[in-house]
């Protein structure tokens, strides 16, 4: 950069000796250190100041180039008018031709400037024959200049440099010091000098901009604003004035710049002088709005003008900004259209993220899922969104129809990401569809990856239903921590209707149907598999189990629950008994460590990873040093509520911190004041959004960041799935022989939005459920850690995803006929008929596998 500046300068010097060019030289001298060494080589055709002491553009360390200030452009002078130094110098030498040329140049740059009338009046100080000194001055060689003056004073007793030169030297020395400190990043020192000495007479507009920026960077916002304001009050050139606004926008929040913008001069037609940069101002305002630095959206007329601008330029970032603004104002339909436009213009994965969110907000979850899936690889936010969007449907008590391909790839992404969120969703989906083996396998992964209360509860229930041996291990391991898990063995004193699955299992459904004289009408389309980590048709291993009939029965079973009443039915006094356990059941000693471990699939979003597999561990690990016997009595844990057995008078040991009584459950914690979470709780926002806890920061903020809109303020994260995890647990509470929470407490809420899991009317059998039972490969379901030091588990992982895909595909094929009723091609509802959905939905990245499904091919 320096080199090119210097060589460019040489050419300029060779081409012309005009003051204008030489002024540029001074400018470049500031930014290119190499210049001073090379400059003397340039022809010095004229005997006058080689460089008029004009201002030089200042390159801030690491600063973005000013948008409207060209570093090569001759500097016109400071905000108080053009620099007349050179002009007066020529006048002092009576070089009228040069004076006239300089006047012409200054007028060209400053149309309103008038040449001083006192040009040819004698100067107070001596000033004659200072050519060589001015040369040094012009070249910023201040130290040499001082030496030269001292030498001449010694050689010519009585001689004094002109007062003007002295004054200029002083100012320039100060200026150079300030700029040098600025370049070194010593902002404190800049401020100290300016405070102590002022900015000198050479406080041209560049220096004043610099000082304002230093104040802004040092968080002296009001000082910075005052400095910019002062510049606006004195600068007359339109270019300087708009550049001042630009610089202020670069360095300050737009809310601080607004008072400066308000100082715009308005012409006779009511047009603001800042009209030419109106788009930039609006862009900054939009960015501030997305960053939550500005509360109110952009007013209609101004925003429409920006929309016109964005429509007219090819830059997808501009349409993206419009889209995110619409998104943030909850104009989701408009946001959708603009996101589509931005994508067509080459928008990136963050634009696709916005598209997916808009679709989700418009209730088009399927389409949102498609977009998130297609763009999952370039941006992890999309992969997370993909998991979170479908999670909501999967965890519904009676899940809606979900195409096998969707389940398959959901399982695949879940395995690729080792997502506890995805695994528990599939676990509940399987559980609520009476497929306990599949549920158990998914819940094992969920508990390895994200063992929160609802997930462990799901594992306990599935373990018992699947008649696994670890049921009481789970109950004992989480005694004292997860009351809901303990509720699987300790009744709460109420009875509930049996679950649809239990009704099916007991034969109640078919009896009822027969009594009603209406035989169940198997609907083929109900029958569909849940892909499990690996699966095969249920009937293969469970002879006599009729998937179709079960699916039909599930829905009818749900309807039949009405006869049991939805209300909470207290158990009869004699029935509400403390359960009896064998010694091996409860309480029993158990290793407190959760032994479940599963690695991710090792795939890079469904594709083989190019990276080496996880190597075998090198060297030994520490032997577990804890040797004492395990406890049989739980102790209290801060952040955990009462255990269900406490109503029979059983007590827990005091907590490690002395806690004697049940604490408020941590999930009911009030958000700490001042956090975004607190703001969400206060406004009820956030939690009604889709996505698991922590997954979704306000996407518009991430967008603003990725669109290069500068500093990022805190996210106003949306919370979605946090409470959602309990939905599933609550949904499956219908487990007839389980006593759990009162149904009135079972209503899942999403930030105040009730999602009714317990419809009082009949459930239409529109969304049937058929799940596959698992058929696990040896080693697949094995934890990757078996505890041995030095054990090589690298081979345990390998082809989970492949196996998953292969098995699931078999099942899908076997059920293809059954799915035809649901095979109607779907298109994104927001798209026009005939629009090519895949071109919009799929990333343009060549890395994307060609087989990435788009919604248009689903079900075909």
């Amino acid at each position, binding site marked *: 950069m320096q080199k090119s500046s210097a060589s460019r300068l040489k050419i300029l010097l060779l081409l012309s000796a005009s003051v204008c060019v030489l002024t540029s030289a001074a400018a470049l001298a500031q930014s290119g250190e190499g210049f001073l060494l090379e400059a003397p080589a340039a022809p010095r055709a004229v005997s006058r100041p080689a460089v008029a002491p004009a201002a030089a553009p200042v390159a801030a360390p690491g600063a973005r180039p000013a948008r409207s200030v060209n570093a090569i452009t001759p500097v016109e002078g400071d905000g108080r008018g053009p620099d007349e130094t050179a002009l007066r110098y020529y006048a002092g030498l009576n070089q009228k031709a040069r004076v006239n040329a300089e006047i012409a140049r200054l007028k060209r740059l400053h149309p309103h400037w008038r040449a001083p009338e006192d040009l040819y009046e004698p100067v107070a100080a001596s000033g004659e024959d200072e050519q060589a000194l001015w040369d040094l001055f012009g070249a910023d060689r201040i130290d040499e200049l001082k030496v030269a003056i001292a030498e001449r004073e010694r050689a010519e007793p009585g001689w004094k440099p002109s007062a003007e030169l002295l004054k200029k030297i002083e100012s320039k020395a100060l200026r150079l010091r300030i700029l040098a400190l600025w370049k070194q990043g010593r902002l404190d020192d800049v401020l100290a000098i300016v405070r102590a000495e002022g900015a000198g007479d050479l406080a041209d507009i560049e220096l004043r901009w610099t000082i304002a920026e230093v104040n802004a960077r040092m968080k002296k916002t009001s000082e910075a604003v005052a400095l910019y304001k002062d510049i606006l009050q004195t600068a007359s050139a339109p270019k300087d004035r708009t550049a001042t606004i630009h610089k202020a926008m670069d360095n300050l929040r737009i809310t601080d710049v607004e008072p400066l913008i308000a100082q715009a001069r308005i012409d006779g037609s009511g047009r603001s002088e800042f009209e030419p940069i109106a788009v930039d101002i609006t862009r900054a305002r939009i960015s501030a709005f997305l960053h939550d630095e500005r509360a109110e959206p952009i007013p209609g007329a101004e925003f429409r003008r920006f929309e016109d601008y964005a429509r007219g330029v090819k830059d997808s970032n501009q349409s993206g900004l419009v889209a995110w603004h619409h998104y943030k104002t909850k104009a989701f339909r408009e946001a959708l259209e603009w996101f589509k436009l931005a994508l067509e213009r080459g928008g990136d994965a963050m634009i696709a993220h916005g598209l997916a969110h808009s679709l989700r907000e418009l209730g088009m979850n399927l389409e949102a899922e498609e977009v998130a899936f297609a763009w999952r690889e370039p941006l992890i936010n999309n992969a997370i969104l993909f998991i979170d969007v479908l999670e909501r449907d999967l965890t519904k008590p009676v899940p809606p129809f979900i195409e096998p391909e969707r389940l398959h790839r959901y399982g695949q992404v879940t395995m690729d990401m080792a997502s506890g969120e995805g695994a528990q969703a599939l676990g509940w989906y399987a559980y609520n569809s009476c497929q306990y083996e599949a549920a158990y396998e998914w819940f094992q992964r969920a508990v390895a990856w994200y063992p929160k209360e609802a997930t462990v509860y799901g594992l306990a229930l599935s373990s018992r239903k699947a008649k696994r041996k670890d049921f009481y291990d789970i109950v004992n391991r989480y005694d004292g921590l997860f009351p809901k898990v303990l509720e699987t063995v300790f009744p709460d004193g109420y009875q509930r209707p049996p679950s649809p699955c239990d009704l099916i299992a007991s034969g109640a459904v078919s009896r009822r149907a027969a009594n009603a004289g209406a035989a169940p009408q198997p609907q083929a389309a109900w029958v569909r598999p849940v892909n499990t980590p690996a699966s095969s048709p249920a009937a293969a291993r469970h002879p006599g189990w009729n998937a179709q009939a079960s699916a039909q029965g599930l829905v009818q079973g749900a309807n039949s629950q009405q006869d049991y009443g939805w209300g909470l039915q207290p158990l009869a006094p004699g029935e509400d008994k403390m359960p009896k356990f064998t010694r091996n059941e409860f309480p029993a000693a158990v290793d407190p460590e959760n032994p479940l471990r599963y690695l991710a699939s090792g795939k890079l979003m469904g594709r083989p990873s190019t990276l080496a597999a996880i190597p075998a561990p090198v060297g030994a690990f520490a032997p577990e040093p804890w040797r004492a016997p395990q406890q049989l009595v739980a102790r209290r844990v801060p952040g955990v509520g009462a255990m269900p057995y406490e109503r029979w008078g059983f007590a827990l040991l005091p907590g490690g911190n002395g806690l004697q009584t049940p604490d408020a459950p941590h999930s009911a914690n009030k958000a700490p004041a001042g956090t975004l979470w607190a703001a969400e709780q206060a406004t009820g926002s956030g939690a009604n959004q889709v996505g698991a806890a922590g997954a979704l920061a*306000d996407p518009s903020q991430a967008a603003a960041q990725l669109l290069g809109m500068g500093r990022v303020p805190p996210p106003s994260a949306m919370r979605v799935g946090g409470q959602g995890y309990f939905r599933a647990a609550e949904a499956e509470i219908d487990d007839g022989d389980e006593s759990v929470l009162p149904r009135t407490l079972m209503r899942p809420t999403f930030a105040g939005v009730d999602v009714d899991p317990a419809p009082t009317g009949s459930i239409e059998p529109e969304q049937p459920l058929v799940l596959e039972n698992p058929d696990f490969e040896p080693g697949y379901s094995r934890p990757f850690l078996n505890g041995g030091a030095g054990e090589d588990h690298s081979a345990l992982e390998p082809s989970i995803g492949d196996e998953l895909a292969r098995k699931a595909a078999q099942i899908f094929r076997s059920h293809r006929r059954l799915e035809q009723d649901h095979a109607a091609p779907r298109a994104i509802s927001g798209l026009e008929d005939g629009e090519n959905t895949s071109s919009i939905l799929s990333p343009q990245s060549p890395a994307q596998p060609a087989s990435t499904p788009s919604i248009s091919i689903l079900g075909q």
Partner: protein
Amino acid sequence: MKAANFVLAACLIAGACMSAPAAQAQEASAQQTPAQQAPARTLKLDGRALALGGSLAAPHLWQQYKQRFVSSTGRVIDTANGLISHSEGQGYGMLLAVAANDRAAFERIWAWTRANLMVRDDQLIAWRWEPGQRPAVSDMNNASDGDILIAWALAEAAELWADVAHRASGRRIAVEIGRKLALFKSPHGALLLPGVSGFSTDDRPDGPILNLSYYVFPAFARLGAVAPEIDWAGLSQSGLDHIKRARFGESGLPTDWISLRDGAPRPADGFAPQFSYNAIRIPLYLAWAGLGDWEHYSAFHAWAVGKRALATVDVKTGRDVDRLQDRGYASIGVLLACAIDRTPAGPEFRALREVEHYYPATLHLIALAAANLRYQSCVKG
């Protein structure tokens, strides 16, 4: 040794500290006498955001560390503290595994962490786990530093091994930190609460409470890779600002726990007004990130560099409290001397002593990784 730290934290988290007798309230060191300052120096630190992967470059030390503190199931054992584990230790273990480029160990430690500590119903991590207790998780509260260390380690692992699973997990935790633990619009600058429960304005009369050693500066420089929408730079800046302001007593050192209730920082009520096992990590993190100027370091430099043995300090009286005998602690001084004075580290900096416990040994390896990452000239040979 570190037990005191945990007892304090537990007391604070449980709110028990709030009922501490008023006599215990430490108002004295609110007199923030500026420390005797050494003349200002210009530091030339390298504050670039550098990838952590491979920076430990001491396979034998990491091997020793694993053999002593990491169980085969991935549990990082606090040997001086009842053999418990905590989110901080798991986070350090994960970071050191990345720094040692030991993916197998990383997977074990992370798998243990999520399987045993991610029991909260959000993306944060329960901070304390005790073997032999029923249940082993002994507090549902989180510790922000543990969360940050783990999220950072995941982000580093995602980059080093191109692992989308770790990227996703790191992002979920990082976003939750930004959402539940950061106060970005605080009048005191961006604040990081030490935990979800027990530290905010509503939770304590002297809240919000700050623990400056929870500002993991090198993490803030790197977490943008997984959660760019969070103002990590703002947290860094406010952390630096608070370090400049929280200088108590003659030593000019900060206490572990600080109240910002009155605007100006003061030692938090109910805690010993000590620069102790928590706060000694502040200069370690600063140097690891290559952040700060002389003002940030001067008090720590005076405390650590050239001392035969370090000690925790009562900032009120200026007296030493606990001698920090283990060499691991001294490594903080070695790192500071290296970063600030360019003093070469001695050979002991590259050795782990058998007798040292988890905490000093961990600090030692971190100091070594930090020196390898940013101050290589000091650790050559």
